[in-house]
């Protein structure tokens, strides 16, 4: 077993005819994902890598039984695409697109929650269950099947840490990149809950970064609900306050969201803290 994405995933790719959509559909298929449909308005009837393209998600679901969606459409159209997927009855929506307006995210995150849809992103790399399937843009080669559940707010930093684990012989059950946006769908707590319930996941790695209070909330949840060992790395200990470190979420504003506060909260919850990404595998083994 793994969480959210597995051999039963039937994926529709929204924006499949675009450059990223086409490229990553192929990579997902190579990873083992059952990509059953693509959607691009006006391009119904075409095929991409042998996958049929439809004009609407509704049609894709009706014709192929798709139960999950990966959204690659540009930011101005992302809200519409996510709501279309939810309306069509898709149970899991992974939104890769970055630079989605914050009020759009507030709206579709609330709709997903009300409808009981698992929404990951926006601005996320997606998730992968090695040996089974992946949804998103995570590089195929870094993974290895195993028992560590990984949840991360970062993209490339996730690859860095997963790669270090794999090189060390530590495999993953599922790796969930929840993304670094200000208003994300799935949060640390949702992913931790799934990992706690998943038999195949024996240990957990949490990758956080400065900004917001998601790590502090995760620490609180871990104290009360998680019995599996957790290792954490939090990026940005040396980042100065008030500077936006690359993307929207990563900023220490008004004295909140510092690495110190996050590390303190996580350590108090019994989490082992890794000073650098390279220290993660050793601590997972310990």
């Amino acid at each position: 077993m793994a969480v959210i994405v597995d051999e039963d995933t039937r994926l529709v790719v929204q924006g499949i005819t675009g450059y990223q959509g086409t490229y990553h559909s192929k990579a997902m298929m190579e990873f083992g994902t059952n990509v059953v449909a693509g959607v691009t308005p006006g391009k119904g009837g075409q095929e991409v890598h042998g996958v049929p393209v439809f004009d609407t998600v509704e049609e894709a679901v009706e014709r192929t039984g798709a139960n999950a969606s990966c959204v690659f459409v540009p930011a101005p159209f992302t809200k519409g695409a996510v709501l279309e997927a939810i309306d069509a009855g898709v149970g899991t929506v992974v939104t890769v697109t970055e630079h989605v307006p914050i009020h759009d995210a507030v709206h579709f995150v609330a709709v997903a929650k009300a409808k009981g849809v698992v929404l990951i992103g926006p601005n996320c790399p997606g998730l992968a269950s090695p040996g089974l399937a992946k949804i998103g843009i995570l590089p195929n080669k870094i993974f290895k099947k195993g028992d560590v559940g990984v949840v991360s707010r970062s993209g490339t930093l996730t690859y860095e840490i997963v790669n270090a684990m794999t090189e060390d012989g530590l495999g993953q059950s599922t790796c969930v990149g929840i993304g670094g946006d200000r208003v994300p769908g799935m949060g640390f707590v949702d992913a931790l809950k799934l990992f706690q319930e998943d038999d195949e996941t024996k240990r957990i790695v949490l990758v956080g970064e400065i900004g917001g209070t998601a790590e502090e909330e995760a620490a609180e949840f871990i104290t009360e609900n998680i019995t599996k060992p957790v290792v954490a790395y939090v990026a940005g200990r040396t980042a100065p306050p008030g500077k936006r470190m690359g993307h929207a979420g990563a900023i220490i504003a008004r004295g909140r969201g510092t690495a110190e506060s996050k590390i303190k909260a996580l350590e108090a919850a019994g989490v082992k803290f890794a000073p650098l990404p390279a220290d993660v595998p050793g601590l997972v083994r310990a």
Partner: protein
Amino acid sequence: MKLFEYKAKELMRRYGIPVPEGFVVSSPDQIDHLPGPVMVKAQVLIGGRGKAGGIKPADSVEEARKVASAILGMDIRGYTTKEVLVEKRIAVDKEIYLGVTVDRSRKSVLIMASAAGGVDIESVPEDKVLMAHLDPLIGYQPYIGRRVAKAVGLAGPQAAQMESICHRLCELVTKEDAELAEINPLVVTEDGEVIAGDGKVTIDSDALFRHKEYQELKEDLTPLEEKAKKLDIAFVQLDGNIGVIANGAGLTMATLDSLNMFDGKAGVFLDLGGTDDPEKVKQAMLLMEEADPKVILVNIFGGITKCDTVAAGLLEAMDEKSVEVPIIARIKGVNEEHARDMLKNAGIIPASGLSEAAELAAKESLR
């Protein structure tokens, strides 16, 4: 994107929020009439203007010109005053705080209000600030505004005015894609009017595609920041001497943390984000050269960004301009073997792990 006070107030006026009569000028001789006794206010995107001498009263055109010429050009905490707002003075009875923002952890719009206005809201004790969240599926409703009015101690016609201002400010925030709209102080005048004494609005830069009017506004950027913005590269100036080029905010921060472990300090970092264009990498490298670091550390974990794309960009940049400082490159991920071959004879110091790369760069920077 932060708006100047006068822009924020223009917006508030457009949404029906009462603001004092006034106009903005960039030179004293543009003042030829007054709406009555006025305040002349420096237009800078930083707090603490009053204390710095950037807000002064005036009672005649002549006096207003004199005050304006003193404030124009004034340096306020690093920001040069280029414009002043000449605004009708209001007789203050009470000062209230009202702000609308997006609460990240509750994933909803949040109204904050306090009877203790006119001071930094961060310094007001939490139990004196009302936090009212808007359920995104319900949105603003009049009962929320009534709750706010009650919490700040207003009754009768002033409570009705407050409810209306709350409504309009929430409408402004959602329709204009603002991350923050703040009125501090919201003034109750001696005549019992409720009116915006100050105005602060930050527009979500990710939403500029649907707000043409803000795209034309200029931000206060340094020349290098300006260039980086045009290239869609995140550029952050820090105070060390190592130039870092990486992809992704998390990896960039992990690179800085790793440098710090070996006593290296980053001076500037460029976050390429996801790119598959060698030209962008080349431009980033040339930009980095301009920032004049002592050593350059390139740390890429390729996913969307392919390693050979990065290598091609680096080589093109080095062809165009000889880079004098040592370059350390650690490039992992999609097509890394090809990238390594390409860079073999380019005089770049290779590193395989992040810690190794950080140690090499730190050593070079301390040399």
